C-alpha cells in the first residue's frame, strides 16, 4: 500500500451534464443521451399523469352500478385513452427510452449511444406521436378501445372521428420505438468496452437488448396494420370490412402479432431492472446469471408465436387454439425460473431495505400473482369463461402495471441519484411504496373476483343485483390510494432536486460502470475508459461514512491495476 490517495476512489465533480451548457436550445437540440433520457423521462411522466387521470375517471364511474359521473360515450373514451396512453406513450417507452437512454451507454463505459442524432429524432417522433394521440380527443373523440378492433374502428357510423389521428399517432410512435431499438442494438454490439464480453454485461443490458430485437422486428407489423386500418376507414378498400368481403378477424391476428411481443417490450426491461435491483441491494452476486440472460432472449423469441392466445373465442379453429395454448405454456417456464433466480439471489445476501429494493421485492410479489393468474388464461377451457372479463383486466394490470411499471419506478428510484445527483427522502419513499402497494392490491385483486363472477370489461354500467358493486368500491378506493402515493413520489422527487443531500458516486453499492462516474455524470461520462470487472462481485466495496456512498476497498486491487504488493 502506498499512502497516496487514489484519484478514482471517489470521483470528483469536474463538470456536470445538467449544467454543461445552458439555454433552451442546448436541451432541445442536445445529442447527449443523458439529456435525451431525461427529456423522455419528463415526457413519459407527463403522459402517465394524463393516463392516470383517465384511470381515476374510469374507477370513479364504476362506484355505482348506473355509473357515477359519465355517460356511456364519455366512459368509452376514458377507458380508450387510458389504455392507449398507458401502453403507447408510457409503458413501452418508459424503461427503454427514458431509463435505458440514460443508463445504457454509461453501463457500457461509452460516451454516448451509437447514433446520437437518430436518438434525438426518436424523441421528437415520440412527441409528434403523442400530439396526434392527444389530438384524437379533440378531433372527434376516440372510443375504440386501445386495440382498435375492426370492424368497429373502420365503421364511420360506429367509432368516433378520432380513429385516424390516433392510429397515425401510434404509427409515428412505432417509428420512435424502432429507431430506439436499432440504436441500442448497434450500441451494444459496437460500443462494449474492452473486457466486457457478452456474458459479463449487466443483466439490464441483456434485457434491453432482447427488448430492442422485439422492437425492431415486431413494431413494423403494427405500423403496417394501422396504416391498413386508416386506409380502410378512409377509403373502404375491403381488407377488414366484412360488407366489402374483408375479414375483421384478420385484423386481430395482425394486431396481436405485434401486441403480444409488445407485452414483452414492456416487461423484459423491467425484469432487467429487477435483476439489478435485487443483486445490488442484496450486495450479493446474482444467481443463475446465464440463465437469466438466455431466458430474456428465449422469451423474446417465443413471444412471436403465442399471439393467438388473445383470440381463443374469436372463432379461430380449435386446432389453432390448442397449438397456441401449448406454446403459451412454454413461455411460462423462463419467467418462472427468473423468479426463482431472484429469490435465490437474496439467499445469504445482505439486503438493505432501500426504496428501490422495496420495489424490487414488490415486483416479485406482484409478478408472481400476474404470472400465476396467466395460467388460467392459457388453459383453454377456463379461458373461454374468463376471456374479456375483469379477470383479464386484473391479470394484465398485474403484469403491465404491477410488474412493468413497478420495475420502471424501482429503476427510477435506483438511478435517480445518478441522474440528478441528489438523494430523495428515503422514509418518504418507503411510506409511498407501502401506500402504493396496498392500494395496488386493493384495486386489482378484487378485479379477479369481479371477472370470474362474470363482469365483462369495458362496461360503463353494470347490473345492480349481480354482486359486483362491493368489489368495485374496494377497487376504486385502492386506486385513490395509488394516486396519493404517486403524488407523494412526485413531491419527494421534486423536493430532492432543490433540497436533497448530494448523492455520492455510488450510494447503493453497485458494481456496474455507471456507479464509477460522478453523480450526476460529466458531459462525457468518463474521462478515460473505465476498466471492467465482474459487475456482480460486491465484496470489493466498502461503505464510506464520510461520503455516504460505497468506495473501493483499499486492500483489494482494481481490475487492470497493477498489484501493490
Amino acid at each position, binding site marked *: 500500500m502506498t499512502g497516496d490517495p487514489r484519484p478514482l476512489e471517489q470521483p470528483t465533480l469536474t463538470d456536470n451534464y445538467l449544467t454543461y451548457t445552458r439555454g433552451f436550445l442546448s436541451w432541445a437540440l442536445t445529442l447527449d443521451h443523458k439529456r435525451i433520457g431525461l427529456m423522455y423521462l419528463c415526457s413519459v411522466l407527463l403522459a402517465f399523469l394524463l393516463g392516470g387521470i383517465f384511470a381515476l375517471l374510469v374507477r370513479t364511474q364504476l*362506484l355505482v352500478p348506473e355509473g357515477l359521473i359519465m355517460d356511456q360515450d364519455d366512459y368509452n373514451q376514458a377507458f380508450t385513452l387510458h389504455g392507449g396512453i398507458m401502453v403507447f406513450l408510457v409503458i413501452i417507452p418508459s424503461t427503454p427510452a427514458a431509463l435505458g437512454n440514460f443508463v445504457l451507454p454509461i453501463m457500457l463505459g461509452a460516451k454516448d449511444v451509437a447514433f446520437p442524432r437518430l436518438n434525438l429524432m426518436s424523441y421528437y417522433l415520440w412527441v409528434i406521436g403523442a400530439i396526434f394521440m392527444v389530438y384524437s380527443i379533440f378531433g372527434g373523440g376516440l372510443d375504440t378501445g386501445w386495440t382498435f378492433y375492426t370492424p368497429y374502428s373502420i365503421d364511420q357510423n*360506429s367509432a368516433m372521428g378520432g380513429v385516424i389521428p390516433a392510429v397515425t399517432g401510434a404509427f409515428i410512435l412505432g417509428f420512435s420505438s424502432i429507431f430506439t431499438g436499432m440504436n441500442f442494438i448497434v450500441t451494444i454490439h459496437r460500443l462494449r468496452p474492452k473486457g466486457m464480453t457478452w456474458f459479463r454485461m449487466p443483466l439490464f443490458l441483456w434485457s434491453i437488448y432482447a427488448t430492442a430485437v422485439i422492437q425492431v422486428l415486431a413494431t413494423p407489423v403494427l405500423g403496417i396494420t394501422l396504416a391498413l386500418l386508416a386506409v380502410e376507414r378512409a377509403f373502404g378498400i375491403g381488407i377488414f370490412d366484412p360488407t366489402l368481403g374483408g375479414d375483421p378477424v384478420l385484423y386481430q391476428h395482425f394486431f396481436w402479432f405485434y401486441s403480444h411481443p409488445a407485452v414483452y417490450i414492456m416487461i423484459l426491461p423491467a425484469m432487467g431492472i429487477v435483476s439489478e435491483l435485487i443483486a445490488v441491494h442484496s450486495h450479493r*452476486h446474482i444467481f443463475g446469471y446465464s440463465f437469466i440472460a438466455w431466458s430474456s432472449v428465449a422469451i423474446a423469441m417465443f413471444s412471436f408465436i403465442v399471439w393467438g392466445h388473445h383470440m381463443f373465442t374469436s372463432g379461430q379453429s380449435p386446432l389453432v387454439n390448442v397449438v397456441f395454448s401449448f406454446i403459451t405454456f412454454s413461455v411460462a417456464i423462463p419467467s418462472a425460473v427468473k423468479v426463482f433466480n431472484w429469490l*435465490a439471489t437474496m439467499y445469504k445476501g*445482505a439486503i438493505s431495505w432501500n426504496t428501490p429494493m422495496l420495489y424490487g*421485492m414488490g415486483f416479485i410479489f406482484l409478478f408472481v400473482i400476474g404470472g400465476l393468474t396467466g395460467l388460467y388464461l392459457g388453459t383453454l377451457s377456463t379461458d373461454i*369463461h374468463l376471456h374479456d372479463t375483469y379477470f383479464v383486466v386484473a391479470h394484465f394490470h398485474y403484469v403491465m402495471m404491477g410488474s412493468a411499471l413497478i420495475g420502471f419506478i424501482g429503476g427510477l428510484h435506483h438511478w435517480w441519484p445518478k441522474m440528478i445527483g441528489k438523494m430523495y427522502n428515503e422514509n418518504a419513499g418507503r411510506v409511498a411504496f407501502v401506500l402504493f402497494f396496498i392500494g395496488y392490491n386493493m384495486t386489482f385483486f378484487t378485479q379477479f373476483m369481479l371477472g370470474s363472477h362474470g363482469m*365483462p370489461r369495458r362496461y360503463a354500467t353494470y347490473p345492480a343485483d349481480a354482486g359486483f358493486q362491493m368489489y368495485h368500491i374496494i377497487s376504486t378506493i385502492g386506486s385513490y390510494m395509488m394516486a396519493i402515493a404517486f403524488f407523494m413520489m412526485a413531491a419527494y422527487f421534486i423536493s430532492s432536486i432543490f433540497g436533497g443531500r448530494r448523492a455520492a458516486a455510488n450510494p447503493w453499492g453497485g458494481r456496474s460502470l455507471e456507479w464509477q462516474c460522478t453523480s450526476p455524470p460529466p458531459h462525457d461520462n468518463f474521462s478515460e475508459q473505465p476498466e471492467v470487472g465482474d459487475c*456482480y462481485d460486491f465484496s470489493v466495496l*466498502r461503505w464510506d461514512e464520510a461520503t455516504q456512498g460505497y468506495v473501493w476497498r483499499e486492500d483489494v486491487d482494481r481490475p487492470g491495476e497493477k498489484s501493490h504488493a
Partner: protein
Amino acid sequence: MSIFGFLATVKLGEATSGGGFWMPEGASTVAAEVDEVFYFINNINYFFFALCTFVLVYFAIKYRLKPNHHSGFSHDAPTHNTPLELTWSIVPLFLVGVMFWLGMDGYLRLNESPEDAYPVSVTGQKWSWTFQHPEYGVTEAGELTVPLGRPVRLLMTSSDVLHSLFIPAFRVKNDVVPGRYSSLWFEATRPGQYRLYCSEYCGKDHSKMLAVVNVLPEEEFQAQLGKLAREYEDIEDRDLPVYALTRLYNRCASCHSLDGKSGTGPSFKGLWERTKNGTTAFTDGSTLADYMRPGGEFEVPENYIRDSILNPQHYIVQNYLGAMPTFKGQLKERQIDALVLMIKNMDRLVDEQGNPIESPDLGDADISTGAGQ
C-alpha cells in the same frame, strides 16, 4: 346521488352472486368440468404463491443488512446450482403440461355440440340480442327461452360489429362476427334465469347489451314457445300499437327515445308529424317531401317508416349517422306493421315525458298501415 348515499345501498353479504369466492354457481353440464380445471390450477397456484411469498419475506428479514455492516460482503454464496435449477425448471414444466392437457380436453368437448341439440339462431346488433327459434317460428328479443336438460346450440352472427355472447353461469362464450357464423352449445342443468352479457366491446351501449336466459322444464318450455309463436297472430289490429310498444320497442330503445330527446337516432316523438308533412331532411340535401309527390317512392308516408326499418342506410336523416342496423329478416310482416302503427300513434301511447300510458285510448286511432293503398 350523494357519495355516502350509495355506500348505504351496498349489501355486504352480496359480494358474490351465489357460488363460491372464485366462481359463480354453475348451471350447465360443462360448468362443473370447467370449475374442476379452475380449482386444479388454483391449488397449484396457492402453493407456488405461498412458497414464493414465504421465501421472499423470510429472506428479506433473515438476510437483512445489519446496521454498521456495510462492507466485507461475501462473495462465496452460490451463483448457480445445476440440480436445483433443473428441478425448478422441470417441475413447473410438468405441471403446466398437465394444465394444458386438462384445458384442451375440456375445451374440445365444449366445442363439439351434440348432434341432436336444439337450434337457436342468434343475431347480435348494436345493442341488443335477437334469438330465433326455427322449430317454432318464434323470435325473442332480450330474453332467450331454452329447455332444461337438453343440449342447445346457438348459431350466431352479427349484423354490424363484433359482439360476444357470454353466459357466466354456463361458462360459455364465443365472439359474434359480422359476415360469418360462430356457434356455441350448452345444456342447462337448473331451471331459472341467468344473465347473458355482450363481452366484446361494441360501442356506446355495450354495457347495456344484456339479456336473460330463461331455463324452463321441457313442458313449460314447449308451452311458452307455443304461446310466443301465436302471440302476434292472435292480436287484434287495434292492439298492435300497444303490442309493439311493450314487446318490440325494446329493440329500438337504445337509439330512439320516446320523450323527444335525440340519441343515436331521432326520437320517435313527433316523428310521424314530420313524416306526414314531409319535412324530414336528409343528409344528401333532399327532403322527404321530394319523394312524396304522386308516383314518388313514398307517396304513402307509412312506406317511409317501413323503409327506414328495412333499409335504414337508404335515406339518412340530417344530423345523424347511418348507425341503424337493418331489421330485415328479423321481424315478421305483422311485427313491422305493428311498429309502423306504434310510431303513427305515439302521442296516444305515451305522455309528454315519454312514459307509456296505462291503458291508452285507441278507439279512433288510425290503424291503416298504408299497405294496399
